[in-house]
C-alpha cells in the first residue's frame, strides 16, 4: 500500500508500547462505538502515484481538443495571457508552496517580503494608497468591498451596475442575503454604458459599484460616478481589469474609494477558474476596515528591516466576531505569483503587453465585424468588446469549440425590458495573427451555414 506514513511496523509497535496500548484502534477508545464507522469508506483502494497521474491525465484529456486546450478569445474575468517560464520556476519553489501563513516572521521573511512587494505593486496599479495581501478572487473582493462600504457608511443599500461582471454580482447577492444588504441595479444604455438617472435612485446608498472597463468592454466614465457618490455620501467601488490599468487612468486617480479586481491576468493560469486572487485596494482612511491580511515593514531587534503581518486586530483570529472579515487562508501563493509576474513584466512590459492586447483585439474586432450580420455594440473599448451576432451565441460557442476555439463569452443585456445576447471577445498578447485569421474564417463558416 503506497503511503506517506513513515512508520515501520516495528516503530508503530514501539510507539504503541510507549503509550501502553495494544493497537491503533485503542487510540480512538473515547469515540462511542455507535459513532464508529463499521465498514471501510466507499472509496477505491490506494494506488501508485503513476496510476493516479494516469487517472488525472485521463480527466485532463477530456478537456482538450486534439490534445490541446481551446484557443481562447474569451475573457469575462479570466484571460489567457502568456506565463513566463521564470514564474513556473520561482512560483513552485517549495519554500513558498509548502509554507503556511507567516505566523513566525523570523522564518517567514520570504513570504512576508513578497507580500509587501505585492501590496506595493497593487497599490501602484490601482492608484490607491493601500492594498491587502490578496483575497480569494475578484468576486470575493467585491463582497469585501461592499462590506467595507457598509461598515464605513453605516448604510446597507448598494447600487451595482449591470456592467459589473455578473458572476461577481451573483456572488455579492448571495452574501448580501446573509448580511441583510440590498443590492439595486444600475441599468446599461444600449451602447453598454452604465446609466445614472439620479431622480430614480435612493439617497441612502453605501456604495456604487462600477466596472472599469465594464464586463462588456466599455470604458465607463468614472468621474460621473464619483460626482454622484460625493453628492450622496456614498463610496465608489470600482471593479477594474488589471491589465487595462497599463493604459487607463487608475481607479485611484479617478476617485475610487475601493478598487477591486480579479488578479488572474497577473501570471495565474486559467485553471478552470481557480485558484485566482482577489485584488483589494483602498485609501488609508479605511485601513482599519480592510479585510484579510496586511504585511508591514518594521525592524528586528538588531534594527534590520523585516516584515510582519500587521494591524492584526482587524483579523478573525484576534478579534473573532468583531473582525472586519472572516478571511484566514486566502491566496498567498497566487499573490507571490502576481508579484513575480509584475516584476518580470516591468514598467515597459506592462504597457507593451496591454498595448498588444489592444492591437490584437482591434484586429480581431475589425475582422469579425466585417462578417455579414456581425456588429460591434461598444462605443468605447480597450481589450474586450461585445458583438451582436446574426445567430445564437450559444450555438456559435458550441460549434467553435468543436473546431478548437473558445469563441468568447456570452453576455446578456436588457434593452427595453428584452434580453439581448452578445458575444464578448478578447484577444490577448498570446494570440497570433494566424490563430485570429483562422478563427475568423471558421466563425464566418459557422455563421453562414447557420443562416
Amino acid at each position: 500500500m503506497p503511503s506517506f506514513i513513515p512508520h515501520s511496523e516495528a516503530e508503530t509497535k514501539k510507539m504503541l508500547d510507549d503509550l501502553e496500548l495494544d493497537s491503533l484502534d485503542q487510540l480512538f477508545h473515547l469515540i462511542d462505538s455507535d459513532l464508529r464507522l463499521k465498514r471501510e469508506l466507499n472509496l477505491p483502494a490506494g494506488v501508485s502515484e503513476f496510476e493516479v497521474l494516469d487517472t488525472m491525465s485521463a480527466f485532463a484529456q477530456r478537456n482538450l481538443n486534439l490534445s490541446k486546450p481551446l484557443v481562447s478569445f474569451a475573457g469575462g474575468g479570466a484571460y489567457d495571457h502568456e506565463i513566463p517560464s521564470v514564474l513556473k520556476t520561482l512560483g513552485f519553489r517549495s519554500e513558498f508552496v509548502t509554507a503556511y501563513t507567516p505566523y513566525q516572521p523570523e522564518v517567514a521573511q520570504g513570504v512576508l517580503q513578497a507580500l509587501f512587494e505585492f501590496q506595493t505593486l497593487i497599490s501602484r496599479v490601482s492608484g490607491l494608497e493601500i492594498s491587502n495581501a490578496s483575497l480569494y478572487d475578484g468576486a470575493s473582493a467585491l463582497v469585501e468591498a461592499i462590506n467595507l462600504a457598509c461598515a464605513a457608511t453605516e448604510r446597507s443599500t448598494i447600487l451595482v451596475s449591470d456592467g459589473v461582471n455578473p458572476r461577481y454580482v451573483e456572488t455579492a447577492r448571495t452574501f448580501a442575503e446573509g448580511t441583510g444588504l440590498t443590492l439595486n441595479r444600475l441599468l446599461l444604455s444600449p451602447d453598454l454604458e452604465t446609466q445614472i438617472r439620479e431622480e430614480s435612485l435612493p439617497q441612502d446608498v453605501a456604495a456604487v459599484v462600477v466596472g472599469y472597463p465594464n464586463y462588456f468592454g466599455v470604458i465607463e466614465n468614472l468621474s460621473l460616478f464619483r460626482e454622484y457618490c460625493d453628492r450622496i455620501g456614498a463610496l465608489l467601488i470600482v471593479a477594474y481589469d488589471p491589465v487595462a490599468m497599463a493604459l487607463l487612468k487608475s481607479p485611484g486617480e479617478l476617485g475610487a474609494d475601493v478598487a477591486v479586481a480579479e488578479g488572474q491576468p497577473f501570471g495565474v493560469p486559467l485553471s478552470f477558474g481557480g485558484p485566482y486572487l482577489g485584488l483589494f485596494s483602498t485609501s488609508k482612511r479605511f485601513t482599519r476596515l480592510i479585510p484579510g491580511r496586511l504585511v508591514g515593514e518594521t525592524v528586528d531587534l538588531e534594527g534590520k528591516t523585516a516584515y510582519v503581518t500587521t494591524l492584526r486586530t482587524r483579523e478573525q483570529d484576534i478579534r473573532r466576531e468583531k473582525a472586519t472579515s472572516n478571511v484566514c487562508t486566502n491566496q498567498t501563493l497566487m499573490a507571490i505569483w502576481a508579484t513575480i509576474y509584475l516584476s518580470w513584466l516591468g514598467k515597459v512590459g506592462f504597457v507593451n503587453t496591454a498595448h498588444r492586447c489592444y492591437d490584437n483585439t482591434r484586429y480581431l474586432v475589425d475582422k469579425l465585424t466585417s462578417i455579414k450580420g456581425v456588429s460591434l455594440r461598444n462605443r468605447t473599448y480597450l481589450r474586450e468588446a461585445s458583438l451582436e451576432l446574426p445567430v445564437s451565441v450559444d450555438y456559435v460557442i458550441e460549434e467553435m469549440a468543436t473546431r478548437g476555439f473558445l469563441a468568447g463569452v456570452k453576455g446578456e443585456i436588457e434593452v427595453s425590458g428584452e434580453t439581448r445576447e452578445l458575444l464578448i471577445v478578447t484577444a490577448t498578447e498570446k494570440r497570433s495573427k494566424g490563430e485570429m485569421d483562422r478563427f475568423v474564417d471558421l466563425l464566418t463558416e459557422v455563421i453562414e451555414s447557420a443562416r
Partner: protein
Amino acid sequence: SAEPTIFELSAKGRTAFSLRTQEVPVRDPKETVPESLLREKVVELPEVSERDLVGHFTRLSSRQYAVDLGAYPLGSCTMKYNPKFADQVATTSGLYDIHPLTPDSHAQGWLELMATLERYVCEITGMAEATLQPAAGAAGELTGLLIMGAYHRSYGRKRTKVIIPDSAHGTNPASVTLAGYEAVTVPSNDRGLVDLEHLRKLLDDDVAGMMLTNPNTLGLFEEEIHQIAEAVHSVGGLMYYDGANLNAIIGITRPGDMGFDIVHSNLHKTFATPHGGGGPGAGPVAVTAELAPFLPGPKPALVMEDGIERYRWVTPQASIGKVHGFFGNAVVLARALSYMLYNGFDGLKAVSQYAVLNANWLRKMVSQRYDIPYSQTCMHEFVASAQRLRKEGGVKALDIAKALLDNGFHAPTVYFPLVVDEALMMEPTETESLQTLIVLAERLNALAELATTKEGQSQLHEAPVNTPTRRVDEALAARKPRLTFDQPANH
C-alpha cells in the same frame, strides 16, 4: 543578510519581459478610448533583468521555512507532507490551462473530476451532497451558515443566534457575524469539552444552529457529540461541523454519523494540498439530503441526454447562489482528489490512525516538562502549557516557540485556544517519522530545562538567533504602519 525590495533592485530601462513578434498593425488607443481616461504616466512597476528577478525570489525563498525543509507542528494547521505528484497534476495540460467559461460539453473531464471529488467528500464526511466552491475553510463556514439561513427561511423561521464553543477557531465567530447572526459562546467543561448542561440552557427558538470542531481545538474528541446534536436539533437548530480537524477521524467516524448537518473540510489540511504561504486552500461544504437543495450552484451533474450520459452544470433548486466567481479553487481540488486516489480508503484511514498516534506519543514525551491541561487521550493534536515555565522563570510560550525556530523546527501554534494559558498547540501530523518526533521532544524538553536557569531564561528571551531575522518589532509595524514601499519608512 537582508534582501532589498524588488523596487530597490530596479534600474531605469532594464527589462525582463518578452513579447511575441508584432504581426498586426499597431493601433492608437485614442481611437476607441476617451482621451480623458488614458493614462498620462505609466505605472511604476520595477525594472529588473530576468537574472536579478530570479536572484531576488530565489534568495527570498531561502529566507523562508517550509514543510519541505522540516517539521512544522503548527497546531490546527495540519502541516503534513504535500505529495509532489500533485504538483504534476497542477501543471497537467487539460487542467491548469482550461478557461472556466469553456462550455461544459468541452470540459467533461473537469466536471467529472469535480463530481468524483464531491462524492468522495460526501462519503468521508457522511453527507449527501457537496459544493466545491468555497475557496478556503472560512469561506466554507460562511457558505454553510448561509445554507443554514436559507433552510430556516424555507420554513419561515427567523433565527438569530449561532452557538460556538469558547475554544472555537476565530473564523467561526467572524463567519457567524458575516452571516448575520449573533455568536453565542458556550464554555468548555473541565475536560476541555462542550459543557452540555450549559449548552442546553442556551438553546431556544432563536438558535439557528451550532458550530463545532470535533475533535475540538484542544485536540479532544467531543464524547457527548450525540447528545449535543440531539439537543441542538431538538430546538430546530442545525449542527455545523468545522472540518479543520478532520485529519483525526477519516474512516474512523464521520460528522454525518455524529449528527452534523453541514460540514466543511479543509482540503489543504486533511488532503495535503500545500498551504502556499497562506493559501490557496479549498473548503468544500457537504450537507445532508435535506439541505442539498440550498447548495450553491452551479454543480456538476450527470444527466442523460439522447441516451448518452454526460455532465452538465446544474444549479440546485433552492440554491443560495454562487459563493465563488467560478467553481472554486479548481486546481486545488484536483490536487486533493489525486491525494485521495493515492491513499485510497485504506490509506486515508491510516492517515488518521498515525496522526493520532504521533500526537499522543509526542504528548507523552513532553508531558513531564510541560503541563498538559487535559489528561485524556488526544486526537491528532494536543495543547501543552508553558504556564509553569512562565511562573517559575518568566519564560513564555512565545519564547519556547521562538527558540524552537533555532532548533530546525517550526513553532507550534501559540496562545490558542484561548481557554489554555500559555498554550502551545502541537500537531505533528502522520507524515513525521518517529526519529523526527524523538528530536522534537528532546528539543522541547531541553528548552523547558533551559527555562529553569537564569542564563537559559535570558537565552530564551533572546531567541531566535540563527534565523533570517531576529524577533521583529510588531508594535512598531502596527503603530506606524508602512504597508507599501512608497510610504515613508517608519524607523
